[in-house]
């Protein structure tokens, strides 16, 4: 009888273990419309890639079969384009100006003067990049792909420079500024800033100048890839 009872227990445990190990299969539950939108997105990506390939091919063509002088010109052009991409040049254009103002509440016990914590800035930049921002400058510090935003002794530093006291301006260039503005006005970021007693004010400006990134880029941790470099032939 005891054997039977223990075997019952063992059977139960086996069944439970078996069920726990069983993973539900992932099914594709997208309907036709979703599949179509996904396909469209992928096609757009493909087109983008094709465009990039074409641009690269044009540059290669320019390198090949031309005099040294022209090669030099192309090289200079490429360098300028890359510099622009890396944020090493001043850039002008139509863009969005985001003013960060302190938000005062009617508090009985007074209020600390608000500052912008780095996490909030990260969130804002993520949001801007999601909605198509091309170039960003935070209070005259150009934001590049290696820009550190961090808290040093409770002050927020961007590009190793402390942020000025509020109000400050964040300048954003985008290909479709109106759309970016629409997105940002309804973004959750506004709420997150409000929690820290900060208010975001958006404005479109037609002649916006973003400063250049004026420090040297540290290439200490970069390695070149394993293919022949452009212009090495």
């Amino acid at each position, binding site marked *: *009888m*005891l*054997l*039977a*009872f*223990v*075997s*019952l*227990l*063992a*059977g*139960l*445990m*086996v*069944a*439970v*273990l*078996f*069920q*726990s*190990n069983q993973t539900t299969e992932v099914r594709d539950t997208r309907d036709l419309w979703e599949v179509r939108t996904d396909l469209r997105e992928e096609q757009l990506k493909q087109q983008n890639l094709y465009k990039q390939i074409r641009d690269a091919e044009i540059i290669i063509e320019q390198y090949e079969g031309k005099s040294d002088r022209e090669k030099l010109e192309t090289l200079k052009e490429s360098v300028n384009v890359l510099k622009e991409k890396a944020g090493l040049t001043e850039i002008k254009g139509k863009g969005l100006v985001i003013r960060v103002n302190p938000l005062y509440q009617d508090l009985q016990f007074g209020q600390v003067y608000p500052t912008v914590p780095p996490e909030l800035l990260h969130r804002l930049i993520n949001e801007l990049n999601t909605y198509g921002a091309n170039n960003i400058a935070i209070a005259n510090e150009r934001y590049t792909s290696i820009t550190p935003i961090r808290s040093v002794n409770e002050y927020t530093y961007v590009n190793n420079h402390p942020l000025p006291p509020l109000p400050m301006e964040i300048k954003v260039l985008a290909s479709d500024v109106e759309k970016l503005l629409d997105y940002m006005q309804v973004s959750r970021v506004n709420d997150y800033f409000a929690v820290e007693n900060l208010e975001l004010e958006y404005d479109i400006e037609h002649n916006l100048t973003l400063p250049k990134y004026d420090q040297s880029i540290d290439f200490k941790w970069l390695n070149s890839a394993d293919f022949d470099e452009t212009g090495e032939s």
Partner: protein
Amino acid sequence: MWLTLIFLIIGIVLGLLTDFRIPEIYENYLSIAVLAAFDTLIGGIRSHLEHKFDEKVFVTGFFANVSLAALLAFVGVQLGIDLYLAAVFAFGVRLFNNIALIRRHLLVKLENNTRQKKSKI
């Protein structure tokens, strides 16, 4: 021995019908518990066949083995060593040993039976 098998099947059916799942982190413990239970079961069947079955030894062995294995697994998790493998190994070896002994017992029984039948004829 048949009762054991029947109840094992009943247990499995019951477990499948209840549709009960445990969190992933406890799966290790349960797998060891299952192994310990099987080890005890097979050991019990063997001692039954050898006419040495003792309820006290059986019950205490079951609970002691399960808790010791779980403890080992727990300590292993805390230390970052896969100590539960030790339990799996020990139980596995014992399982095979016991199954081999049971098989021999059954074979001997079968031979005896056929011999008796022949002698009757």
